[in-house]
């Protein structure tokens, strides 16, 4: 931290949390803040935190929704641990977020709402603004509601509409505190309210009001600046995991020159994939909102049989329902991408919260010997990459693939460097031509990767049948022959194993041998990497690796895992990946660090755990 004149302090990273009632526009404020920060050149990641109830009673803890933004001069890998700045639009939002604040952080509240009625709704017995409980924080208790109404008095807007701009007063204060560009904030509003132009000026007015308030009252003695991240160059956009997943599938369809079909059923937190793809009829994308999860995947299998790049999107409970159909996709050896956006389980569980507890289901949750390729994305933006590669592997190896993401990646966002789609790898499905010489044989295989060749309806002369009954090798005739079944079970397993040629070697951070290797998979990558980096920079003997390919594992996995006194596997479940590794590598001793709170890892808790082991 370097102090400059005018009490502007330069900092590397700041975490800002916007919290309020579901209707307080916290998502909008958060996006406004993150987009304008991106324009200034900051790296960023965002994460919304909302209840599964749509509009829980106003002013209560159950109704608090939040939007966290982590911006940095340096690279950002997570949406941040505890907040440096909290905007709490009511007492409930303050109370809800108190345990996620850094000591000494700045709290901006609407002082007008800290009166008996709202305090009681939030469960406060005394007013925290007056009882000294916030003495470790810098509190800005601005009269946001009354100021907003005063500013908009002349506009003729009704009180309800005026109050919807309260978030802009708060953001004006945040812009002052963190030296953001008001012009960009106004531009954002102009874009946002393009269809309701009467609201642009009023919102801008309130934002300026908040900014002036912070400036004039000299509430804030020190402001902060987060300089641009100069290591990032190029053209970026802010993207959520679900949008990135949808776009990855679309890009794969384009590179494979196949039509894209998504059969799906709405389910939190995966629904946005369906909604996003439904927008793109202009690119020929077909989405089929089925009557249930089973029909979603079955329609996708039908589309695959007919020659589409077919996908289905779901969350854990939906994956359970699709199990039988996934077996059919394995048996018919058709390409199919299954996206499971994991959430807290079991059963309905915690629908809007994140967890990594579907791994075993993805690997083994089917009847019979039904191996599938299983992959996991590790950041909101790399959902694009892994969706693309899930499709590529599925099409080129003629086998279904499960891509695991989770609520944290799906709803969170980060900057994504826009690729040139034409530079993405080409995808070559093993399609046959019409009238295959000697007659088309559905289970004739490519000798190298064991993918069967793909004929599709509409082709002259290639009429054939596939289905869920065991098929004779090569001919595809129904067969109950015991030796044929043995052979087919091995062929299907070997086909999945051989997909390893398209799995990149596992990357390792830090020394190849030493005291501690920390392992993660999927969405915990950012937190584990950040924690590792901190300790590594402190000179600790620690390495880290985060897996994206689970089945098959990268070819160098055993090599990576060997050579450490301890291998610690960190995951947001009760130990699914660690047990999978134990099964695959019985000679390596693994220890585990599990969190079952349906919340992402905090960097601080990882650092603490790693230090405990290193110092033991």
């Amino acid at each position, binding site marked *: 931290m370097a102090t400059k004149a005018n009490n502007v302090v330069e900092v590397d990273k700041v975490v800002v949390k916007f919290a309020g009632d579901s209707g307080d526009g916290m998502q909008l404020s958060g996006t406004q803040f993150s987009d304008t920060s991106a324009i200034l050149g900051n790296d960023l990641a965002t994460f919304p935190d909302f209840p599964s109830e749509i509009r829980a009673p106003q002013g209560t803890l159950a109704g608090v929704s939040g939007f966290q933004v982590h911006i940095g001069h340096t690279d950002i890998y997570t949406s941040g641990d505890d907040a440096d700045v909290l905007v709490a639009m009511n007492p409930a939002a303050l109370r809800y977020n108190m345990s996620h604040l850094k000591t000494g952080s700045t709290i901006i509240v609407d002082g007008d709402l800290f009166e008996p009625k709202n305090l009681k709704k939030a469960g406060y017995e005394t007013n925290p603004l007056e009882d000294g409980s916030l003495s470790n924080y810098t509190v800005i208790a601005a009269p946001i509601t009354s100021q907003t109404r005063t500013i908009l008095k002349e506009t003729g807007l009704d009180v309800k509409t005026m109050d919807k701009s309260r978030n802009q007063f708060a953001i004006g204060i945040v812009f002052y505190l963190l030296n953001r560009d008001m012009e960009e904030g106004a531009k954002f509003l102009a874009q946002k309210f393009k269809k309701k132009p009467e609201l642009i000026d009023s919102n801008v007015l309130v934002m300026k009001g908040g900014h002036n308030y912070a400036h004039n009252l000299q509430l804030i003695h020190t402001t902060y600046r987060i300089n641009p991240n100069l290591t990032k160059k190029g053209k970026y*956009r802010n993207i959520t995991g679900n949008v990135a997943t949808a776009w990855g599938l679309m890009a794969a369809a384009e590179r494979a020159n196949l039509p894209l079909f998504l059969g799906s059923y709405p389910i939190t937190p995966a629904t946005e994939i369906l909604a996003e793809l439904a927008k*793109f009829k202009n690119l020929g994308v077909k989405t089929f909102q089925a009557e249930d999860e089973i029909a979603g995947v079955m329609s996708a299998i039908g589309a695959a*049989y007919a020659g589409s790049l077919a996908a289905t999107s779901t969350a854990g409970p939906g994956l359970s329902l699709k199990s039988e159909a996934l077996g059919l996709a394995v048996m018919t050896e058709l390409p199919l991408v299954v996206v499971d956006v994991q959430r807290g389980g079991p059963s309905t569980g915690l629908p809007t919260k994140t967890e990594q507890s579907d791994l075993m289901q993805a690997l083994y949750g089917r009847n019979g010997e039904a191996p599938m390729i299983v992959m996991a994305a590790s950041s909101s933006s790399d959902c694009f990459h892994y969706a693309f590669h899930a499709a590529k592997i599925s099409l080129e190896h003629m086998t279904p693939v499960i891509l695991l993401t989770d609520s944290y990646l799906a709803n969170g966002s980060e900057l994504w460097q826009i690729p040139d789609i034409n530079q993405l790898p080409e995808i070559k499905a093993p399609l046959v031509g019409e009238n295959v010489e000697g007659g088309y044989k559905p289970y004739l295989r490519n000798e190298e990767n064991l993918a069967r060749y793909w004929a599709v309806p509409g082709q002259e002369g290639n009429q054939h049948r596939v289905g869920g009954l065991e098929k004779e090798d090569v001919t595809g005739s*129904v067969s109950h022959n015991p030796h044929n079944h043995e052979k087919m079970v091995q062929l299907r397993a070997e086909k999945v194993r051989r997909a390893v040629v398209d799995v990149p070697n596992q990357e390792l951070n830090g020394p190849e041998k030493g005291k501690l290797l920390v392992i993660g998979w999927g969405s915990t990558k950012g937190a584990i990497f950040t924690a590792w980096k901190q300790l590594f920079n402190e000179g600790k003997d620690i390495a880290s690796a985060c897996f994206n390919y689970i089945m098959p594992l990268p070819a160098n996995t055993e090599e990576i895992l060997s050579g450490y006194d301890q291998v610690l596997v960190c995951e947001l479940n009760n130990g699914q990946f660690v047990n999978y590794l134990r099964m695959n590598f019985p000679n390596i001793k693994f220890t585990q660090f599990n969190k079952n709170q349906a919340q992402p890892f905090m960097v601080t808790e990882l650092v603490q755990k790693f230090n405990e082991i290193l110092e033991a």
Partner: protein
Amino acid sequence: MTEIKYTRKDFVSDQEVKWCAGCGDYSILSAVTNALPEIGINKKDIVFVSGIGCSSRFPYYVDTYGIHGLHGRAAALASGVKVSHPHLSVWIATGDGDSMAIGGNHFIHLIRRNIDVNLILFNNEIYGLTKGQYSPTSPLGHVTKTSPHGTVEHPFKPAELVMGSEGTFFARVPDTNPKMMKEVFIEAAKHNGASIVEVLQNCVIFNNNTHEEITGKEVRDDHQIYLKHGEKMIFGAENNKGLVLEGLKLKVVTIGEDGYTLDDILVHNAKDKDATMHYLLGRMSLPEFPVAMGVIRAVDAAVYNDELEKQISNAKATSKIKNMNDLVNAGETFVL
């Protein structure tokens, strides 16, 4: 559509047919392979889809494209085939266990969406492949292995589900009448929308003669009425019985008796958008009424796959975004 002249043989596959001797499925297969040469579609564009059950082995026996899916899921599987590739002629072979029980949900939604497929419902009122348990179409009180004291549940009438799902095409045929089956399958193929054909099919092993009161040689003329669009609703061994409407109910009358003349007899209008009469006709059952056969309902309505294609071509024509590069660079981007 095509100049290719097919015969029945062109649609017979090289697979050995493994149904029980005397099974009604043989005559259905034969009627389908007889009908296919006359629907004017190249066999490279035909796909048979099925679920699980005796009838669901059907795709293996037709020399077209075919996919044998999961129990109850044929309608969903077929929806994916048709919606993704609407130029294909898609046929579903399914049974009363497959489509009325485990797949009941998919059945009604297929119909509600009006996706242009042809569904042949083999209704033998029993589970055959699992060896003789009652099905959702088994009559109340039916004694089977899983209902040794008789069932205590009411059966579905497929026709009512179709009408209740805003169906656009429903027909019924007995497996004992190859000529009628062929005619009706051709009508089903011509209909743009979800065509449902219920075949009263005999399971020779587990529910033999279940439809005998309808299809038996001695009784069939009096116990069936073959409905044809635009024709009088007349039936009977002597062709002198007919249907009239009294109040909100149908009634069987004899022409020349009780003052009824030919003029009083109803004319079948399969194209009436209002399904009320089709519902009454579909519900008719013995002994009060003959069982209605033929095309009971065939109306034009918006078809899912056609509407989707229209939306796509409109979107393609009007959008500035022509490919993925356009999309990823559109909207809010930041140059760092």
